[in-house]
């Protein structure tokens, strides 16, 4: 019965987070892109930039509405489904969530309203300012969430104490907890993934208009801006990805071993590109191996040792035993201690020993599906390289002046829209599943974090959520497609103003001027 509730709660959180994360990356990148375009308008006063920003903000709003709704669920699920977790980490984990609301979310949602409805009521400067506030709000929001998430991955700045409701992690150093070793790279990596998502999204939409010969001049401008934006984001991401791997190797060696499918410890470890994981027999069969590359990437040293899953599990078990054996020793010392300061210190040690002896005692069977972690991680990386390839080809075509006319390539851009979404979800799955069996790395097992709620209730809420989310997703796609089909509200002075839906391009004075710039 307990296991059932746990499994269902896992599914529910996984489903909610998966769903929420469909909407988040686009918000992160599109906000910045819109703000950049609004600023271009402010500088040049070219109507097409303003039309572009307004159009994209409408798409942003459709996306944002579902994002908020699903984010709301996530925030409350910590309490409803993971109350034991919330009790243990509330002192630390709640703060970034609260600060997200206070510093980021208010900003984002208030200024979206101002941007969408304020045109004509506020000056252009204030309008552009509100675009920046939306963008900054989105990034700040991601920062706080990743601070919270990173603390779960690599907890720091806390001590463990006993309270009437059980053991709690108590904050001792806010900066250490918030800005731990992995926060910054997680933040950059995630936000940049959002940039790529938004970039491909806008490129795809504009490519679609070009294929259909609608709003042609508008689409050319949009495609070009989005392409430059995406190129920078995609190339930087390769660097960020590498840095992220380096930090995971240092702070979460078990996760790295699962990412790479390494069961045995290897010196001068190879990077394995394709393979099959056989978890039952503790082995993986790889097809393409690049010698030394994993050691170089992970430790910047070709001969460095990369620990395998088997050894790591043993290591954790030994550590757990070590803590276990410390418990009676500390208890004895505690009985003799008279100095209150020393007593406090010993009590802290005792709580820590108890928690770690339990949490670090993991068995091989507790590990998640390694094939899942391996596959999702590898696919994400391959997609990352694919994005870089696509934008480089696009840039080359832009330079040759053929980008706007090569129908085949424009179709590739349209069909690429879902790929960055998939990459984000894959990355999220690999990093979250890769953290298992812990919910807080080395302190709290996921199995100990679940709420004492009857399995039937969780089953019911999971079912209803699945239905609601599925309907929501269909409606979301429908609304997006409709809005895209409808196209931008072009101002009378825009070059495409005389373009009708059938695709006949009318002539206007500004037309040739923009046309020149498009090249």
């Amino acid at each position, binding site marked *: 019965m307990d296991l059932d509730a746990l499994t269902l709660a896992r599914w529910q959180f996984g489903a909610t987070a998966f769903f929420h994360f469909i909407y988040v990356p686009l918000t992160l990148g599109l906000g910045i892109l819109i703000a950049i375009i609004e600023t271009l308008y402010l500088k040049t006063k070219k109507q097409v930039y303003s039309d572009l920003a307004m159009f994209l903000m*409408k798409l942003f709003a459709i996306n*944002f*509405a*579902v994002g*908020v*709704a699903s984010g*709301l*669920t996530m*925030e*409350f699920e*910590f*309490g*409803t*489904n993971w*109350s034991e977790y*919330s*009790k243990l980490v*509330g*002192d*630390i*984990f*709640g*703060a970034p*969530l*609260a*600060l997200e*609301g*206070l*510093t980021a*979310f*208010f*900003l984002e*949602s*208030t*200024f*979206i*309203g*101002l941007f*969408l*409805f*304020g045109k004509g009521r506020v000056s252009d400067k204030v309008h552009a300012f509100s675009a920046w506030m939306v963008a900054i709000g989105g990034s700040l929001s991601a920062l706080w969430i990743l601070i919270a998430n990173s603390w779960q991955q690599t907890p720091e700045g806390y001590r463990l104490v006993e309270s*009437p*409701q*059980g053991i709690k992690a*108590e*904050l*001792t150093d*806010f900066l250490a907890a918030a800005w731990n070793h992995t926060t910054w790279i997680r933040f950059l990596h995630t936000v940049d993934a959002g940039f790529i998502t938004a970039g491909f999204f806008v490129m795809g939409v504009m490519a679609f208009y070009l294929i259909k010969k609608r709003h042609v001049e508008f689409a050319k401008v949009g495609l070009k801006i989005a392409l430059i934006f995406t190129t920078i984001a995609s190339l930087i991401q390769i660097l960020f990805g590498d840095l992220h791997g380096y930090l995971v190797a240092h702070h979460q060696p078990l996760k790295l071993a699962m990412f790479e499918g390494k069961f045995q410890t290897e010196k001068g470890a190879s990077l394995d590109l394709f393979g099959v994981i056989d978890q039952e027999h503790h082995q993986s069969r790889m097809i393409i191996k690049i010698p030394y590359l994993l050691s170089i990437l992970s430790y910047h040293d070709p001969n460095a040792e990369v620990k395998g899953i088997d050894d790591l599990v043993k290591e954790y078990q030994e550590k757990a035993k070590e803590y276990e054996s410390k418990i009676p020793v500390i208890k004895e010392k505690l009985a003799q201690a008279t100095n209150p300061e020393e007593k406090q210190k010993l009590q802290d040690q005792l709580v820590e020993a108890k928690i770690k002896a339990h949490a670090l005692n993991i068995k091989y069977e507790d590990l998640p599906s390694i094939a899942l972690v391996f596959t999702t991680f590898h696919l994400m990386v391959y997609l990352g390289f694919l994005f870089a390839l696509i934008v480089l080809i696009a840039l080359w075509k832009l330079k040759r002046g053929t980008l706007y006319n090569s129908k085949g390539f424009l179709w590739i851009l349209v069909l690429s829209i879902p790929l960055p979404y998939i990459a984000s979800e894959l990355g999220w799955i690999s990093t979250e599943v890769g953290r298992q069996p812990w919910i807080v790395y080395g302190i709290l097992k996921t199995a100990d974090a679940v*709420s*004492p*709620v009857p399995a039937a209730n969780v089953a*019911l*809420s999971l079912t209803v*959520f699945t239905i*609601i989310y599925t309907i*929501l997703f269909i*409606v979301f796609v429908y*609304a997006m497609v*409709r*809005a895209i089909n409808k196209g931008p509200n072009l101002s009378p002075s825009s070059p495409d103003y005389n373009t009708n839906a059938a695709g006949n391009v009318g002539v206007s004075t500004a037309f040739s001027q923009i046309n020149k710039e498009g090249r």
Partner: protein
Amino acid sequence: MPMELITTLNGIWFLLAGIFLVGYSLTDGFDLGSGILHIFTKDEEIRLTNMNAIAPVWDGNEVWLIAGGGMLFAAFPIVYAVSFSAFYLAMFLVLWALILRAVAFEYRNKKDSPTWKKWWDIAYWIGNIVPAFLFGVAVGNAVIGIPIDEKGVFYGNLFTLLKPIPILMGFVSVFMFLIHGVAYLLIKTEGKAFEFAKKAAIIGFVGYVVSVAVADFFIIALKSELFNNFFDYPLFWIAPILMIIGVFLYFKWLVVDEKYDKVIYASSITITGTVLTIALASYPVFIRSTIDEKYNLTIWNSSSSDLTLTIMLVSTLIFLPIVIGYTTYVYKVFKGKVSAKGGYGH
């Protein structure tokens, strides 16, 4: 007033929790209130006008709930963990409703089809009435107590929560949001929509007064100890007096003076008074345990460490005024009447 309310971090945070609840009720409250009206008119023009009235601001308003939830998690994690797992299904009903509301709002006007609109209208209404009602029910349960043990494990189900007093408080909260929503519409609308809002204001006002009176009657009869705080700390009377002043002004401005622009001040005072009255009646308990008094979750046994409370307090003191500042600015930008036209969905 007990000194610890303003001299200890835990006390200050109890008040801040109350302020966030008031903040949510004052902002998202009028969205919910205007949404509750939705199915009580068949007139498309009125419906659209009412939706346009809240369109630029409702997203920001709902953030009060998100920020409030985060604040509760940060400052009183045990209350957060216990209440949400105890109110499991009720909580999810609220979440589903809020999702429906958000999506209905965004999508209703995306297509000119009567069937499409009809379904989204129902979804929109459910999305407004359910949270409005269940907020009252949840607060009512926290105040009169639920069966929780020393670890905060809840012994009951959804029906355990549906007792007379919480249900009555559910009605109080529906009418409280309704009179506030209508007051907002009185400022934002004209013509047909305005006349409709005027009628609804009177019905809502009567509903609010009656539901408060009946709820009070039941509390006096069944749970009179909830009044103890007001006799122990006479300053607490400020809250119920505010509520009464609000009700009086509401009637005066709406019916006697017909100063429709002012009615919203009255509903704001009423809401502030109502929410604070309940909070102060409960002080220092967040959630009462009906199993044993010892298991009550209080501001003392369910809070975060002093360090977290301090950091959060400083952050709140810095950022809350900024939030209120730009929110006020945006409201000023959108000052004036709205019509059925406009809105970005067309």
